[in-house]
C-alpha cells in the first residue's frame, strides 16, 4: 500500500472535541475454535503480567470478546465540522447570462479554488469583500447585473479532506472534493478486513506473550523481535532493531514492515521506527511517556519528518466492558528494571 500522509494541514477554526474514530468488531469466542484458542492463550499470558485474576476468570468460553483496532489519525481528518467564511455572491434574475458573467470575471483567488463558481441557487461568487465585489460588478457593465443583487453567503474556507467533511461543506456551498480511498477506509472501519483482523490478532497475541515486547513483521514473517534489556537505552524497539541481522542489497532496513508493541513508544523509539522506515505500528497500551496518542505531540503526524507510518491502538475487551490491556495507567516505554 502506498504510504499515506495523514496530516493535511490544520483546519483553521475547527474544533470538535468529540471527533474520534473507533471501530469495533465483536466476536463470540465460541464461534471459531481457532480464535478462541488465540484469545484464551492471549489472556492466560496476560495473567502473569499485571491484569487482576478476577478479570482473567471471566474470559471463559461464554465471554464475548471485542477487538478494537483504533487508527490514530490526524484530527484534520477525523473532524466532522468545517470552518466557514463569508463571501459576496451575485443573485441573478436572468439565469441565461450566468455564462456571460463568469466569462467576464477573474478566477477565484488561490485560497478559494475549492469553491464552485455557481451555487445551488444559481448565484455567482464574486469576491471576498463587499467593496471589491461592488467594483467588479460596476466593471462588468452588464444591464442584467445590479449592485443591489449582491448578497453575503457563507462558504467552506478549506477544501474538505474527507467525505464526511464534504457532506457538511455541500450544505454551505458547492465544493470540489477528491476522496482519498485509504483515508475513507480508515474512517469508516472497512480497512479492518478479515485477513487484517487475523493478522493483528496473531501478532498482538505473540507480542503480549513476550511480555513488554516488540515484533517487526515483513511479508508475513517475523523480521526481528526484542524485549527490554538493561542497556541504558534498552527499550523494546531499540532491542528489536539491534537484533535485526545486517541486511544487504535491495532490502533496505525495515522498509514497509509492520511493528507490534505492547506499550506505546516514547519519542526515542517512535523516531527509531521512522529511521527503520516501517509502514504501520500496532500497540496495545498507552504509555505515560508515549508520543503518538491524541493528547500530545503525535510524532507520526509531524509534518517536518520525511517518513510517516500509520498508527493503530489494539484493544481486547471482555464481556464486562473493561479493557484488560489498557488498565495499567503506569505503562511506560522503558528498559528492563
Amino acid at each position, binding site marked *: 500500500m502506498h504510504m499515506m500522509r495523514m496530516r493535511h494541514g490544520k483546519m483553521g477554526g475547527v474544533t470538535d472535541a468529540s471527533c474520534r474514530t473507533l471501530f469495533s468488531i465483536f466476536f463470540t469466542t465460541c464461534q471459531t475454535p481457532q480464535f478462541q484458542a488465540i484469545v484464551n492463550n492471549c489472556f492466560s499470558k496476560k495473567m502473569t503480567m499485571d491484569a487482576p485474576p478476577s478479570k482473567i476468570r471471566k474470559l471463559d468460553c461464554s465471554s464475548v470478546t471485542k477487538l478494537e483496532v483504533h487508527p490514530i489519525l490526524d484530527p484534520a481528518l477525523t473532524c466532522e465540522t468545517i470552518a466557514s467564511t463569508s463571501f459576496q455572491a451575485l443573485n441573478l434574475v436572468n439565469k441565461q447570462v450566468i455564462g456571460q458573467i463568469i466569462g467576464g470575471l477573474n478566477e477565484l483567488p488561490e485560497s478559494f479554488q475549492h469553491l464552485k463558481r455557481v451555487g445551488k441557487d444559481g448565484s455567482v461568487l464574486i469576491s471576498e469583500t463587499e467593496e471589491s465585489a461592488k467594483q467588479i460588478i460596476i466593471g462588468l457593465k452588464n444591464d442584467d447585473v445590479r449592485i443591489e443583487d449582491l448578497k453575503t453567503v457563507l462558504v467552506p474556507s478549506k477544501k474538505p479532506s474527507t467525505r464526511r467533511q464534504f457532506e457538511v461543506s455541500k450544505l454551505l456551498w458547492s465544493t470540489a472534493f477528491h476522496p482519498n480511498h485509504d483515508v475513507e477506509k480508515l474512517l469508516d472501519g472497512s480497512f479492518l478486513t478479515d485477513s487484517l483482523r487475523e493478522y493483528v490478532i496473531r501478532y498482538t497475541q505473540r507480542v503480549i506473550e513476550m511480555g513488554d515486547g516488540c515484533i517487526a513483521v515483513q511479508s508475513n514473517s517475523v523480521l526481528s523481535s526484542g524485549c527490554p534489556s538493561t542497556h541504558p*537505552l534498552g527499550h523494546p524497539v531499540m532491542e528489536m532493531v539491534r537484533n535485526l541481522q545486517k541486511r544487504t542489497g535491495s532490502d533496505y532496513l525495515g522498509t514497509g514492515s509492520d511493528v507490534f508493541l505492547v506499550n506505546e513508544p516514547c*519519542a*526515542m523509539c517512535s*523516531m527509531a521506527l521512522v529511521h527503520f522506515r516501517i509502514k504501520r505500528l500496532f500497540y496495545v497500551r498507552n504509555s505515560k511517556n508515549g508520543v503518538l496518542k491524541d493528547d500530545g505531540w503525535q510524532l507520526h503526524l509531524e509534518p517536518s*519528518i520525511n517518513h510517516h507510518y500509520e498508527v493503530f491502538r489494539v484493544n481486547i475487551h471482555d464481556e464486562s466492558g473493561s479493557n484488560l490491556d489498557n488498565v495499567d495507567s503506569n505503562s511506560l516505554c522503558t528498559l528492563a528494571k
Partner: protein
Amino acid sequence: MSDELDDNDRRFLECAFNLAQEALDGDEVPVGCVFVVDGKEIGKGRNRVNETGDPTRHAEMVAVTEMWKKYGEECKDFLRRAVLYVSLEPCIMCSSAMYQLGIRKMVYGAENPRFGGVRSVGNAEKYRMEDNIQIVSNVWSDRSVAMLKSFYEKQNPFAPPEKRKTKKPKQ
C-alpha cells in the same frame, strides 16, 4: 555562541568533528560525538548506519553502547554527570535518549531543521520530559554544514567527479 566556549570545550568539539570526518571518509552521515565527565572523555562515537545496516547507529547511540560495554551499570551514573559534544543537533531519537539518560549539558554544531530533536523539530516538552539539559547550540555551524554538504554531493552518482571529492572542512 562560540564565545562561551573555553579551551576544554574546543578540544572536545575538535574531537567530535574529527569523528564526524572519519564517518564522512567511511561514507557515513558525518556526525561524531564525545561524552565528557569532569573534563575527561568517557565515551565517543560516530555514525555507523551503513556499516552495520542498523538505522539507529547514530554517533550518540554508538557512544552510549560503547560506554555500556566498558562500564556496565556504572555508565548510567556517569551519563547523569556528562556533557555531550556533538557535531550536529541530535535527531529526535538521540535527543529523547539524552533526556531519558538525564545528561547534564549538550554542546552541538548546526541545527537540523528536518530531524533536530533539541530545538528544531522535537523538544523535551513534546517528549513529556523536563527541559533540564543545559544547551549550547549552533557551535561551529559552518563546518558542520560543510561536512553534510560534501556527504550529499559525494552520494549523488550524477555529481561530476571533481565535486564528489571530499571538501576540506572550514576551520
